[in-house]
């Protein structure tokens, strides 16, 4: 098979996503774009800008800052907010900890990944958001493969997989009762490769950690973990320098690096096409149990 066509982005997916984003603006009073700093939410920003061009995007970005983000991600977030003219709202997991609403995990696998759900639900309530646009894709994980484009959450932010609304043709039903809100996934039908091809064809900027760089890491459970003040390590986990990049960007405590020399988008795409490990294979948060994602979604996680 030649590589030519596989490296082309199917534009139909962009049209679909723009249609969905415009439906959010039309059907809801207070939508927000959930921004994580990762390539999928950066793609959402690009799509939202196109959806309302030449007007400004009529909703803000909401970032739940765990305090364990890569510094490069935060720097990029602030730059993108300025560049796109979108309002940026940040809520901090540290505040939820200080308020005694959540407890920091302990031990060597401690992360704030589960904790951010509480901060997110609080932010939705505080800011009265009725729709949150997220960058989840169905190809990422098997529970996500079952999720609708408009996914209704109850008063407690919970997802009930048995009560999903039928979604027919392109007709989206965003009618909800008071207290409910909707999670919206415009790039549901994109794969990892689609996102990268889109980023390349659009000439988009992305955080530098997606590209190959020198970094101090440790090896644990066959994965390469970036060292940081937030990672609890044992004595036999000796840090060493390596040339790596990140394929997915979450917290520094739950995102593993891959050894890579890819310094351009072309090289990244080539690497992904040849990869034998899936994208979320480097996400430590998914490995807790077979149904880890569905269980987190039930309580309000993205």
């Amino acid at each position, binding site marked *: 098979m*030649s590589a030519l*066509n596989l490296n082309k982005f199917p534009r139909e997916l962009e049209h679909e996503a723009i249609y969905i984003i415009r439906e959010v603006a*039309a059907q809801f009073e207070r939508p927000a774009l959930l921004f994580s700093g990762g390539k999928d939410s950066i793609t959402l920003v690009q799509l939202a800008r*196109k959806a309302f061009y*030449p007007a400004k995007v009529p909703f803000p970005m909401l970032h739940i800052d765990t305090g364990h983000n890569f510094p490069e991600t935060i720097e990029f977030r602030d730059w993108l907010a300025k560049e796109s003219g979108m309002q940026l709202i940040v809520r901090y997991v540290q505040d939820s900890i200080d308020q005694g609403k959540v407890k920091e995990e302990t031990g060597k696998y401690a992360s704030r990944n589960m904790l951010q759900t509480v901060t997110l639900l609080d932010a939705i309530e505080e800011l009265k958001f009725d729709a949150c646009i997220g960058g989840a894709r169905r190809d990422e994980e098997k529970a996500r*493969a079952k999720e609708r484009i408009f996914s209704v959450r109850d008063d407690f932010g919970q997802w009930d997989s048995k009560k999903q*609304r039928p979604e027919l043709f*392109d*007709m989206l039903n965003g009618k909800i009762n008071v207290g409910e809100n909707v999670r919206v996934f415009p790039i549901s039908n994109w794969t990892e490769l689609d996102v990268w091809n889109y980023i390349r064809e659009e000439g988009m900027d992305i955080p530098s950690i997606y590209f190959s760089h020198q970094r101090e890491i440790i090896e644990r459970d066959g994965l390469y973990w970036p060292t940081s003040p937030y990672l609890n390590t044992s004595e036999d986990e000796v840090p060493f320098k390596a040339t790596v990049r990140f394929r997915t960007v979450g917290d520094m405590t739950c995102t593993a690096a891959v050894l890579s020399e890819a310094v351009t988008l072309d090289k990244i795409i080539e690497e992904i096409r040849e990869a034998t490990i899936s994208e979320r294979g480097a996400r430590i948060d998914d490995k807790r149990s077979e149904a880890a994602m*569905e269980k987190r979604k039930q309580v309000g996680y993205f």
Partner: protein
Amino acid sequence: MDVLRLATAGSVDDGKSTLIGRLLYDTKSITKDKLEAVEASSQRKGLDFVDLSLLTDGLIAEREQGITIDVAHIYFATDTRKYIIADTPGHVEYTRNMITGASNAEASIVLVDARNGVSEQTRRHLFISSLLEIDHVVVAVNKMDLVNYDQATFESIKANVEGLAEKIGFKGELTFIPLAAKYGDNVVTPSENMSWYSGQPLLQYLESIPVHKRDDALPARFHVQAVIRPHSDEYHDFRGYTGKLVSGSLAVGQRVSVLPSLKESAIKAIYAGDKKVEGAHAGESLSIELEDDVDISRGNTLVPVGVPHQQLSQFSAKLTWMDEQPLTAGKTFLLQHGVNRIKAKLNSFAHVIDMNTIEEKGDVREFKLNDIGEVNIKTAKPIFADRYADNPRNGAFILIDEYSNNTVAVGFIL
């Protein structure tokens, strides 16, 4: 690169998962860690084979019961195109999920077990493909290895399905392929065991299906989602009508009518995202500027001047009921056609289909969950829809319950 949306229906017993797994394997679309996870799960369950349904049956309830309940979306790509498979359950109690998954499909695969021939499930799947006017239906006669790759068995199933398709009134293209998905026969590569079959293997056939051919050739229908007014210095007078061209094509300079006001103007500019384009095609999200200031709002439709359209306020439709609470005559709803919502009432029932025999039954008092039949509907204001058979993208609607806010039915205008 184009996208082919494909629906598959059936249960594990038909070898559906094996077939999908085969497509993923042979197009190198499944990664090692995902495969290893499935192998480990299969082993834990005490299975002596790799159960590929574990790849797609992602919900806890599905794993508990060992069945497919909801639609799963599976993605793979070849050098020709990207494929989106809506993998739907085969059981009768999940008919609504099957219709949900198949509603965006341009092609569907109906699986038949070569040992059993046409089953109730085959009838239902073919009926739904016909209801949705899916243009290309592949009847995959699977497990040919278990009937010694016998041509006569295949031919007899083919004749049965053709008879059934005629009875149902299926108008699309029917293609029959004998398969042994477990061994890969006629999935991606031609089968050496069935040299009597001269047609294409499954993937090769899928690669050859034209995409969106029908929608492009239909009259233009542009559903308006919103009006964009930037109020900036640079775009002081800009007024863009955003929306989706659900069928047909439009070009700069073309004259259009606004429905329902019937006001006319010409297209001044078309934007696809932030870029100006000269023309647009079915399925595209656009922003359109007109030469004149016309009153247009969300839910309106733009159509080319001189091309016929119809206005409906009382009409017959085929309807699939999707709620646990039965549907009774006189009930009111919100009817959503495209992005337009209007109050509507169910006037009367004409008939319901008996899914076992595909016969129409009159004297209907209510529709129960998963019932499909013909009804009469009245709307508070006219809608500008086509007959579903003439233009599927402008001929379907959903009903929303005003109290629960749930989507409770899908309708196809007759």
